[in-house]
């Protein structure tokens, strides 16, 4: 081995860098953390299935927004035939009013910022 | 189709940068006259103790390779892979981005795709893949691997002697892959099969025995010096003193042997002697170490080291303080980057100090070897020389950076500073063709033989083309350079591509401009040509 000091140091630094998240998570103690959004509602069923909502709620909300703002249509027919009013505050937030324990949990977890609240106001609930 | 028979225009018409259809893995080489070098006679290889001497020619079908030739190559590769990090690294990390392709003067001048540095290396890399990497063993041709056959060896011989180790490609490579390193390895491998080149082995053998490539014996050297003294006396009226093998001199002066043997080198040689006389330098030549260049370097590291050893040995025997080196390109590649490693430490010498200006050459404090341009530039800077640049007024000068002086040493400004002080008319070639991007003369690294003329003319075309540009634009009629191979091979090259441009060493121009104490009025320059304003008058 030649230039071992420099090369080994370089390798160690590189390995430390790429494995940094491992130590970071150990240090923060959140390696096993998984967000469990609280659903505080009497309803048994969201507008669409849970799997669909988890992956694609942003598509639905965008569709609603386009429909309401651009076309003035406010009725959403879900895939099971039920009808809902397209409204973030009045429909979604009726059940999921606890933004901090619902929306924010996952959104913080995966680092996605919300811009809903730059136009909408958060409904007050005791 | 040989370039000698064709005019420049016809040759250029043969250049097509679009590669042929057939994959490079398949082509075999055709040894056409003008594109290959002759082989060394047995007795020279025997004299130097080099392996597998025999009588053969590249153009023959049977190269009479030794029976175990494949084993010799593969073991040689394995050995060098473990000895040279550059070799292994450069074989591993090329991404074939192609940036080097049109940087090689031989590709530009021939259009032969295998002269792209990347493919030149692939010629060897494909064999490396086949025998030294898993993917090559598994996927073969698909992974760019190929069997080591006699045809591959022939292709190596053809293309690794169409590389002048000029290192221009490595300037443009983002990883610094230096085809020179690959060429050096390939040539060592070829030489281990006895597949050498006479134009390299012959000077190396002469240098080994007689001290210089041209084979001048000690008394011959003495005779040459006497002629030089006589020439200077005729031009200046001054009799300079030159000593040979003198013990106790302050400086040992080593020049490439062409300087005292060939033209136009000779005039540079006169320039050195006049300069040293004028400043009263206490120096000596050595007949034993009468060669600065090192053709062993184009053969193998070992032969390079064997030839280079003489310089320090002689400096030690003559008890000089430091060594001064003349104008030569690959000589300085070896002196700057290899000598201290080969044959150092030079702890019996002193750190070089100019006895005239007192300048310490700190950049040479370990090798103790100073370049003549560093030395002279320092003299001029300190106003130690009286110069009359108008004596060079018949010249419109451009400067050709030699590959090794720039890309190995970094000697960019010193020669320019000297030229600007000794000439009134100086014009740079386009910036893409000078300094670190300079183009090779096309004949370096031991491939400058006459039988190789077509390759040389093609490889030197980019350089000549840039000279043509300044010739047409500024009327340049002199190319100054600081390399013995340049001085030997650029005149025929320029004669072919840009007639009307002559070649000179920087110290020829110094010698012309130097006003010496007690000199008679000069009527001719060092070439015995009338000075401007003196034409037609006097008794020249």
């Amino acid at each position, binding site marked *: 081995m*030649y230039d*071992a000091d420099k090369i080994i140091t*370089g390798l160690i630094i590189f390995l430390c860098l790429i494995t940094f998240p*491992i130590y*970071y*998570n150990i240090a923060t103690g959140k*390696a*096993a953390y998984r967000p469990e959004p609280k659903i505080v509602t009497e309803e048994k069923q969201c507008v669409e299935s849970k*799997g669909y909502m*988890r992956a694609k709620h942003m598509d639905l909300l965008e569709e609603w927004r386009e429909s309401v703002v651009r076309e003035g249509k406010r009725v959403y027919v879900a895939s099971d035939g039920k009808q809902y009013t397209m409204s973030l505050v009045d429909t979604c937030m009726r059940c999921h009013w606890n933004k901090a324990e619902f929306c924010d949990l*996952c959104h913080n*977890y*995966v*680092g996605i910022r919300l811009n809903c609240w730059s136009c909408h106001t958060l409904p007050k609930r005791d | 189709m040989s370039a000698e028979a064709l005019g420049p*225009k016809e040759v*250029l018409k043969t250049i097509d*940068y679009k590669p042929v259809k057939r994959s490079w893995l398949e082509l075999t080489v055709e040894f056409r006259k003008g594109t290959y070098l002759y082989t060394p006679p047995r007795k020279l290889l025997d004299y130097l103790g080099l392996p597998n001497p025999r009588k053969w020619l590249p153009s023959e079908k049977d190269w009479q390779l030794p029976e175990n030739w494949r084993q010799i190559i593969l073991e040689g590769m394995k050995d060098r*892979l*473990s*000895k040279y990090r550059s070799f*292994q*690294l450069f074989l591993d*990390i090329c991404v*074939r981005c192609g*940036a080097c392709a*049109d940087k090689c003067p031989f590709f*530009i001048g021939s259009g032969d795709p295998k002269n792209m540095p990347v493919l030149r290396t692939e010629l060897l890399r494909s064999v490396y893949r086949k025998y030294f990497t898993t*993917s090559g063993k598994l996927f073969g041709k698909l*992974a*760019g691997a190929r069997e080591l056959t006699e045809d591959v060896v022939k292709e190596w011989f053809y293309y690794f002697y169409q590389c002048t180790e000029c290192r221009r490609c490595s*300037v*443009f490579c983002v990883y*610094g*892959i230096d085809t020179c390193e690959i060429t050096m390895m390939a040539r060592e491998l070829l030489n281990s099969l006895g597949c050498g080149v006479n134009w390299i082995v012959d000077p190396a053998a002469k240098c*080994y*025995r007689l001290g210089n490539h041209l084979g001048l*014996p000690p*008394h011959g050297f003495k005779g040459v010096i006497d002629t030089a003294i006589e020439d200077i006396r005729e031009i200046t009226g001054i009799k300079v003193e030159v000593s*040979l*093998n003198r013990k106790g001199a302050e400086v040992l002066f080593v020049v490439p042997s062409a300087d005292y043997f060939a033209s136009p080198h000779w005039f540079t040689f006169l320039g050195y002697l006049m300069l040293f006389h004028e400043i009263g330098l206490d120096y000596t030549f050595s007949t*034993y170490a009468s060669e600065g260049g090192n053709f062993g370097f184009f053969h193998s590291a070992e032969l390079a080291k*064997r030839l280079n*050893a*003489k310089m320090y040995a*002689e400096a030690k025997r003559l008890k000089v303080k430091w060594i001064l080196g003349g104008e030569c390109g690959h000589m300085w590649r070896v002196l700057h980057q290899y000598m*201290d*490693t*080969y044959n150092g430490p030079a702890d019996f010498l002193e750190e070089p100090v100019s006895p005239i200006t007192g*300048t310490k050459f*700190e*950049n*040479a404090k*370990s*090798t103790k070897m100073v370049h003549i341009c560093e030395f002279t530039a320092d003299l001029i*800077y300190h106003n130690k020389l009286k110069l009359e640049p108008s004596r060079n007024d018949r010249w419109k000068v451009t400067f050709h950076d030699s590959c090794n002086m*720039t890309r*190995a040493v*970094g000697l960019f*400004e010193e020669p320019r500073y000297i030229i600007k002080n000794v000439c009134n008319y100086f014009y740079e070639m386009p910036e893409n063709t000078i300094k*670190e991007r300079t183009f090779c003369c096309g004949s370096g690294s031991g491939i400058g033989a006459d039988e190789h003329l077509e390759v040389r003319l093609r490889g030197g075309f980019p350089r000549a083309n840039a000279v043509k540009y300044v010739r047409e634009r500024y009327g340049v009629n002199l190319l100054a350079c600081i390399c013995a191979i340049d001085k030997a091979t650029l005149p025929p090259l320029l004669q072919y591509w840009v007639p009307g441009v002559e070649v000179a060493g920087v110290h020829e121009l110094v010698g012309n401009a130097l006003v010496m104490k007690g000199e008679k009025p000069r009527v001719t320059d060092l070439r015995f040509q009338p000075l401007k304003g003196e034409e037609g008058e006097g008794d020249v």
Partner: protein
Amino acid sequence: MKVLYSLLAVIVLVLVAYVGVGLLGLHSLFGVMIPYAAGAVFIVGLVYRVLKWAKAPVPFHIPTVCGQQKSLPWIKANNIESPHNTWGVIARLALEVLLFRSLFRNERVELRRSEKLIFGGNKYLWLGGLAFHWCLFIILFRHLIYFMEPVPSVVLFVQDMDGIFEFAVPTLFLTDLVILIALTYLFLRRVIYSQIRYISLSSDYFAVLLILGVVISGVLIRLFYKVDIAAVKELAMGVISFRPTVPEGISLLFYIKLFLVSTLVAYFPFSKLVHGAGILLSPTRNLKNNSRMRRHINPWDYPVKVHTYEKYEEEFREAMKEAGLPLEKEN
């Protein structure tokens, strides 16, 4: 032909993941085991490769000098292109690694009317290469979101900057767009330019197509075939904290992408992709131009046969004597 083989190889990889996860339901194999294996191969392979390079010495001092040497005090030395101290080397390597300095010099040579060489600037390769590598780096950095909890604000900041132009919901990242363009360019130049096509090997196409596959699948997932990314992070966090779980609700497309990434990572140390590690070891770039100031040692140096002065004088003594040259021994 070579393009076809490489494309075929990438398609086979996609199919393997499709069959493995979509048909056979081997979620933990493709979500956990293969990524672990790929990571291990990457680290072991890379360390092995670098140590193999390190095992070979640098016998001679061979920097490629691209600027004025340090010589006389009144001549301005170029410490970056011809470094004479460690800072110079660091600056040179940094410029090379961060900005691809040498590639920036690139120029195209043309022989006009079979007469004149024309040197044209050619910065596309530099631009394409630099854009690709920087985007790749930023994209990798953004992906730290899936590997760190809580997400560091610097990662969020980079993500915000990357998504500063809101093209779509969710935002199409600038780097995604640029890397697609850059990769397409890098691929097309190998197909279109005859010189580059001539020198390209299957592995060259394979590398660029594989990375293109990863990027395209990533963009598809982000924009069109969305997955439950909280579940994806759960998977990622589980893997790197060595408590792997396979959460529900991750789509097939994600597994395909993960398999392509795993392949890429495992392929890295054994291919030309290691150039990233190689550049720092390149002796033409990482050495100072100081070989006359400091002696460079060759560790395998060995004594060689030389022709000594004594032997030389022996042969020529008479002639030297006649010529009046000084001798060591008079006879």
